[in-house]
């Protein structure tokens, strides 16, 4: 079973009579398996938050469909298995911390017998015990983020959707948050994180997806995304016809002490170059494959020219 599935999901704001229609998400096909931590990346305006709003049924898709645990997102019952932390969180700030969690727990259907213990447990886990009796409107940004995270976990959901969860947290808070995520993963929970903090995503996520201009550019594990991404072929000689052929494709050729290095930034070019070298009977002395950090993968993806 998949925790999240989208089928050709598209959202255009201001469609219909509006001439300034803006496509926010285009034909998104995504699958998040149960039990994995999935990173959802993309520059500002890529369509990450719109996708999350579509998954929560806060907005309607222009076309396509979205499913949570194989049930349409419009079904309210499926939200019993869902916890959500929005990007810029707004809480009912007239409650005290404890009261707020109690209210959300009641909405989630947590039994009144269990509620006080569950609320206390989460307040302790997120270091909010001292602020439990304080009015939420007096909370600092970090405290709001923490209590927001607590409300998302109140009913021990199977799926957590977190939109920029650590934006307001200090380094200590981020470390605690990472530990909680890893604990959730150990317990078989699914976590869907949209974040700008690439190092954080890299350290906890099993798979990532990169979105740009509403389109899914890449998806896979870090190994899949970085494997063979940047390859360098070291060769002893480069015949002139091969040089001409290489000049027509976007590869970098460096000549140092009679040895040539051909750098291929992606898998498609690597295959093309390898084929050309074979065709011209050039012996490959050494092949170096560079593993990329998530940051490198991310920037390579979002700055890559569109393929025609």
């Amino acid at each position, binding site marked *: 079973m998949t925790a999240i599935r989208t089928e050709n999901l598209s959202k255009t704001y201001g469609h219909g009579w509006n001439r300034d229609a803006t496509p926010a998400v285009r034909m998104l096909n995504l699958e998040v398996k149960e039990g994995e931590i999935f990173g959802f990346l993309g520059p500002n305006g890529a369509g990450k938050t719109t996708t999350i709003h579509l998954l929560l049924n806060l907005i*309607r898709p222009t076309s396509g469909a979205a499913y949570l645990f194989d049930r349409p997102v419009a079904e309210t019952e499926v939200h019993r298995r869902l916890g*959500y932390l*929005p990007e810029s969180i707004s809480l*009912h700030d007239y409650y005290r911390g404890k009261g707020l969690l109690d209210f959300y727990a009641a909405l989630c259907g947590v039994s009144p017998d269990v509620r006080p213990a569950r609320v206390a447990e989460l307040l302790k886990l997120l270091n909010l015990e001292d602020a439990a009796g304080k009015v939420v409107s007096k909370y600092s940004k970090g405290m709001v983020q923490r209590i927001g995270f607590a409300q998302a976990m109140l009913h021990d959901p199977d799926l957590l959707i977190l939109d920029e969860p650590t934006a307001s947290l200090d380094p200590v808070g981020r470390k605690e948050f990472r530990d909680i995520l890893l604990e959730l993963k150990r317990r078989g929970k699914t976590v869907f994180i949209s974040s700008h903090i690439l190092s954080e995503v890299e350290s906890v996520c099993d798979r990532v997806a990169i979105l740009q201009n509403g389109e899914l550019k890449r998806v896979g594990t870090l190994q899949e995304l970085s494997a063979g991404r940047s390859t360098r072929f070291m060769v002893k000689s480069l015949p002139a016809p091969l040089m001409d052929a290489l000049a027509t494709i976007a590869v970098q050729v460096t000549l140092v002490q009679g040895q040539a290095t051909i750098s291929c930034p992606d898998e498609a070019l690597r295959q093309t170059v390898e084929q050309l070298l074979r065709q011209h009977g050039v012996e490959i002395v050494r092949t170096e494959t560079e593993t990329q950090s998530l940051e490198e993968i991310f920037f390579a993806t979002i700055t890559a020219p569109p393929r025609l």
Partner: protein
Amino acid sequence: MKTIFLIATDSIRALLHQRLLLGLMLASLALTIFFSITMSSARKNITKSFTDDQMATNSFMGTNQMSEVDRRKFRESMENASTTIQAMFYQVASFGGSIVALFIFSTAVASEIRKGTIRLTLSKPVSRTQFLLGKYLGGVVVMAAFALLASLAILLFAQTQNLELSPVIKWAPWLMFCRQLMLGSLAMLLSLFMHPIIASVLAFVAGNGFYSPPNPLYFVLPSYKDFNVFFQVLQGSLLNLKDVACLSLYAADFVAIMLLFALWRFRTKELV
């Protein structure tokens, strides 16, 4: 049903934390009392002027008694003053209540969308229908409390001022409450299409159209004229139980229609 009550309770809590609303409620009650006190002092002046006239007449005539004509005149003046006080009390309370109702219902859902708190609530197992009905119910409870306060205030006022309550005035709080629920349901519906302030103004203006059956607008736009007992109190006309029941049914029917429209709109509305 439990979820609707939870949303309603939260809505009441939110309303009680709104200083503007509390200010509006207190201001309308204060204004009501102010008008009543003014009218009451006018009533005292009538009594005083009659007493002075009578004393002047008596000293001139050398008698110590009020003539039958004077006594009738005096009674009529007192009754007029009494009904005017009650009518004014009702009118001011009703107007203040309408402003409070417009504020409550037009911002109930709109403010949650504006602040973004609705996103968290609807990420829980709460349907949009439950959310909207909960918000409406919360408003109904606050308006009921307001109507109850207004009733208690007039009772207390009548008791302290030795006023005899008009037979019509006893229905006034209930009819005022019905009228405010109608106004609220229309304001809530309109606020799903436009800014709450514009929605409130439109709901108020639309509701003051004097439609009567068979005008089809009567069934889709509220007509408050029958809910306003101001003139009935002044004229001393009667309002029987059947009339009140018919008006209550009309209000219930109108509120149900408006809520159905609001639900239809809310279920398709983009909540970001």
